[in-house]
């Protein structure tokens, strides 16, 4: 088998039995990136030198048998909004095009301590604002299943890198579907953990109360392995949970028989592509055969999730992006500036793309005197109702199943002219983030030759059940093993 197609477990087995070295595995990925990535354009930066150095260190660790974890020597990529010391971190924005962080995100540190090998940083919609990766200030990323189509967003580069075997795992970030939606479009597995389960320290913030870092992998088992290593309390992020991280992989094989699977009726309405609908019905039948009880449930405020999500995003993003001002780091345009305000105005005008401009202006509008009650406060109240919807549903069932998108991946350029149309492609994935609950996306079929994704949504801090139910599905299906024809 090609080393670039191995699961983390398979690669770990070969590494620890000395049949393959981390340097060899890393070189195989670097070679594949050189060959394939010019077509896909998943990577913004490839950190070859650092990767080979980390791989050599991993090989030493394995040779000595010291401190070997399931991730030691495994090459991965990271969404370009997560800080990596000495490796450029751009958020796919001109304003951070040459920004080299002086410190690591906690997630970066944890993966380095586990011995994982950073291959590079992947493309995204600028600051995470988008659903197709077309808002990257640098270039479009192409869907490995059809190069004319988008990979989804905003973690489109991560999803495409995973799908095209350009990394053994990738780290994405999900503010309102940014892991799950592209995972669905590209046919990979990815989790948005419970808000507060993974430290946000060093993550360049989009929406501080939604942002959740999560792995994207070949299957649910690998996803559980990576999450075990990056989750946990961090004194540098006071919103992280104190509770210990369970060993997700230890109980992943537990049978799902007798568990209750909820089907939210509001997610199965007109507008869903026929092939997506039939893949969902087939997945529900598979779970029925596995002995799960199927129940229809209601999340009555679902249709309001999108306006709540976007209003709160605009508001928080407008405040978070205030730090990109051209004075302490990043792009700075100070020619003919008569005062510091001029530097702000010029730098931000040149440094931000249109979508970022739209969102921060709308955020200021929603927060401004006279509109605060009607928009920001109203959205926070409806957010309470969205959370209550999930609480009510989870008093009846253990887990929910829904599609990740109403359609499969759309064509490049198809939705770029109408911002609202683009927002609507997130309709199934946004509700979880204002509620803080975890959800895992996994492939469940094809519609017109493009992958279809489903998501399983769980209770707060119950990633365990998500992995168990996703893994049970992947034991009896092989959608997650399909590879794009590259």
């Amino acid at each position, binding site marked *: 088998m090609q080393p670039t197609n191995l699961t983390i477990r398979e690669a770990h087995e070969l590494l620890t039995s000395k049949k393959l070295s981390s340097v060899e595995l890393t070189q195989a990925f670097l070679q594949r990136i050189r060959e394939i990535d010019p077509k896909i354009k998943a990577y913004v930066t490839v950190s070859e030198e650092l990767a080979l150095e980390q791989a050599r260190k991993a090989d030493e660790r394995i040779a000595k048998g010291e401190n070997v974890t399931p991730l030691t020597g495994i090459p991965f990529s990271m969404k370009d909004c997560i800080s990596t010391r000495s490796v450029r971190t751009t958020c796919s924005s001109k304003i951070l095009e040459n920004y080299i962080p*002086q410190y690591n995100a906690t997630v970066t540190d944890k993966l380095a301590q586990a011995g994982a090998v950073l291959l590079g940083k992947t493309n995204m919609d600028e600051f995470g604002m988008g659903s197709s990766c077309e808002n990257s200030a640098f270039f479009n990323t192409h869907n490995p299943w059809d190069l004319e189509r988008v990979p989804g967003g905003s973690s489109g580069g991560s999803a495409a890198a995973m799908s095209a075997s350009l990394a053994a795992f990738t780290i994405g970030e999900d503010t309102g579907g940014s892991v799950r939606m592209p995972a669905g479009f590209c046919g990979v597995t990815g989790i948005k953990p419970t808000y507060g389960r993974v430290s946000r320290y060093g993550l360049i913030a989009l929406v501080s109360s939604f942002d959740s870092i999560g792995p994207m992998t070949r299957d649910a088992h690998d996803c559980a392995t990576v999450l075990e290593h990056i989750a946990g309390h961090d004194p540098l992020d006071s919103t992280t949970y104190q509770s210990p991280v369970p060993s997700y992989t230890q109980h992943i094989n537990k049978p799902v028989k007798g568990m209750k699977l909820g089907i939210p009726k509001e997610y199965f309405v007109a507008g869903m592509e026929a092939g997506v609908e039939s893949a969902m019905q087939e997945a529900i039948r598979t779970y029925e055969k596995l002995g799960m009880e199927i129940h229809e449930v209601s999340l009555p405020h679902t249709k309001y999730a999108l306006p709540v999500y976007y209003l709160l995003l605009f508001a928080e993003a*407008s405040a978070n992006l205030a730090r990109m001002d051209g004075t302490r780091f990043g792009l*700075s345009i*100070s020619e003919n500036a008569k005062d510091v305000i001029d530097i702000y105005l010029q730098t931000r005008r040149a440094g931000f793309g249109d979508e970022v401009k739209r969102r921060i*202006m*709308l955020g200021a509008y929603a927060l401004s005197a006279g509109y605060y009650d009607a928009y920001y406060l109203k959205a926070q109240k409806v957010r*309470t109702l969205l959370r209550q919807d999930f609480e009510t549903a989870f008093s009846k069932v253990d887990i929910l199943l829904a599609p990740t998108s109403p359609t499969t991946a759309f064509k490049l350029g198809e939705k770029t002219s109408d911002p*609202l149309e683009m927002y609507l492609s997130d309709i199934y994935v946004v509700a979880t983030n204002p509620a803080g609950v975890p959800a895992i996306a996994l492939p469940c079929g094809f519609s017109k030759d493009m992958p279809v994704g489903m998501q399983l949504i769980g209770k707060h801090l119950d990633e365990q059940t998500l992995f168990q139910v996703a893994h049970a599905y992947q034991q009896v299906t092989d959608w997650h093993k399909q590879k794009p024809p590259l």
Partner: protein
Amino acid sequence: MSTIDTKTVKHVAYLVRLGISEEEAQKFSVQFSSIIDYFNMLNEVDTENVPPASDIANAENVLREDVVQPSMSREEFLKNAPQSERGYVKVPTVLGEE
């Protein structure tokens, strides 16, 4: 149909310290009106007696001892500053005479 005129667009652009041209203001004015119109859908929801959400994970304040710990050196910090002088980030006059 809500309308957000170009004057309002220019005002919010200044609030977020974003330079924009007249043409941009016109383009954003049209787009904002349709987006805000969509958001007005929230008016349908009865939120009488519903408290606004304020936190997501931990409901309590998180405190720690106030002790000095190592942090980034000044030299390291200033590596990313576009302009610096004598260990400070340098910007044009912020306060003072016009």
